[in-house]
């Protein structure tokens, strides 16, 4: 097993950490379009429409950046990852639906920190199954675990502050739903890590992940809404909000792509807590742009934000040393042996050295065209809600968002050619 150049390792760690922070910003911003949606629409339908946007983005972005021919090459190398990707998508869809019920029963204040405990589960799976944090040294263990716990405390403060509506549901049912959602999301990172230890490209992985998402979400929507006719009727009745949810799904996918790169280059034990800063960004959008918490709670928000920032900072500075990276390579070698994947391919992909050449064909442009047409059609019938929006803050946060996109994109391109 060849030793990775320490300079290269530091570059990969830096780009992974930056990807984790960019993921937090974009995943948090995905909440903004959903705030434009009026009440009275079924939560399952909202989730379903978001997944439609996610599906469009997860196929059009990879087609645009790499081309579907590159996807086919990846599948030829590691076809077993199709099963893993679809399984991850199923986990996401069930978790997302559970969170809707959790919020209904116990409110966001209690529910959010409960499912955000997924980062602690991510650390457990990372260490137990993929050799993460092995040989990392006590200081890094303390920094990662302590950082995750501090972030959890910060998340709790933020969630309690952001909760304006008292819950009125079944408390036990809500707590179970939130904890189960956290367990599903924390476990969803097993397929992520599995894919990147076996050399799968993030853009290929997400394209197949979303098949699991869409299939599972369709089954759930049909079950909860009462059949295909009812789903269609509700979709048609809600067509004027479809655009905002498609946009939310698109923004979410950009965030998730960064999250995939974070999982690939810093592992799930560090990547998940960093992308969990999305809660902070979601609150910033709510507070500054939509005027939430205008009369109370800002002090608590500052405390919670500082705690989250401190926890994320501790994790960001606990990057993996060479000896820990060797243990990751061992885990990668185990995967390539088990699934008969070329070890050279796995090693090159793990080190971000083999992105594969981008090749575009007619199918790619067709995918991009169809996705764009659907977005334009949805926009043409969209209704702009009459909401009091602070456009100055909206512009500032959007600029910050694009700042992360450019910084993360340039760093990924320079270091790995999006590999």
């Amino acid at each position, binding site marked *: 097993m060849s030793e990775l150049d320490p300079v290269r390792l530091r570059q990969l760690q830096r780009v992974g950490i930056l990807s984790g922070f960019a993921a937090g910003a974009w995943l948090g911003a995905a909440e903004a379009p959903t705030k434009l949606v009026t009440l009275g629409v079924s939560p399952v339908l909202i989730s379903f429409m978001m997944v439609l946007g996610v599906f469009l983005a997860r196929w059009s972005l990879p087609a645009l950046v790499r081309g579907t021919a590159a996807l086919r090459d990846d599948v030829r190398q590691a076809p077993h990852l199709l099963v893993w990707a679809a399984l991850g998508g199923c986990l996401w869809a069930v978790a997302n639906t559970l969170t809707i019920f959790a919020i209904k029963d116990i409110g966001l204040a209690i529910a959010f920190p409960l499912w955000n405990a997924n980062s602690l589960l991510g650390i457990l799976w990372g260490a137990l199954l993929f050799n993460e944090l092995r040989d990392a040294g006590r200081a890094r263990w303390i920094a990662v675990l302590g950082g995750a716990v501090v972030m959890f405390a910060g998340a709790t403060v933020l969630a309690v502050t952001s909760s304006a509506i008292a819950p009125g549901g079944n408390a036990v049912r809500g707590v179970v739903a939130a904890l189960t959602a956290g*367990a599903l999301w924390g476990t969803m990172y097993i397929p992520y890590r599995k894919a990147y230890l076996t050399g799968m490209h993030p853009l290929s992985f997400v394209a197949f992940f979303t098949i699991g998402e869409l299939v599972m979400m369709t089954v759930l929507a049909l079950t909860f809404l009462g059949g295909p006719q009812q789903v269609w009727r509700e979709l048609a009745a809600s067509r004027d909000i479809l655009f905002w949810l498609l946009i939310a799904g698109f923004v979410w996918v950009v965030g998730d792509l960064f999250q995939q790169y974070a999982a690939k280059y810093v592992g799930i034990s560090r990547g998940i807590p960093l992308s969990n800063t999305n809660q902070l960004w979601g609150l910033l959008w709510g507070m500054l742009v939509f005027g939430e918490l205008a009369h109370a709670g800002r002090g608590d928000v500052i405390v919670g934000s500082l705690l989250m920032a401190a926890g994320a900072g501790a994790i960001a500075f606990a990057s993996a040393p060479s000896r820990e990276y060797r243990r990751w390579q061992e885990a990668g070698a185990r995967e390539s042996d088990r699934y*008969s994947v070329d070890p050279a391919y796995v090693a090159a992909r793990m080190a971000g050295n083999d992105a594969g050449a981008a090749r575009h064909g007619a199918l790619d442009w067709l995918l991009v065209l169809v996705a764009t047409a659907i977005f334009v059609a949805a926009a043409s019938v969209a209704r702009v809600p009459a909401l009091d929006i602070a456009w100055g803050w909206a512009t500032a946060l959007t600029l910050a968002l694009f700042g992360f996109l450019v910084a993360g994109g340039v760093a990924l391109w320079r270091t790995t050619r999006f590999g």
Partner: protein
Amino acid sequence: MDSPPSPSPSPSTRSRGRAIVGDVHFWIPVAVLAAGLVVLWWIA
């Protein structure tokens, strides 16, 4: 002179399927997904 080693045959779909089923890592997300669906069914 030694002849170059012949490339190993690519594993069949069946053997890859066996590798997935025999991978203990696979059953963790499957078990969690099943538990999640049970909880969802209970809540609904």
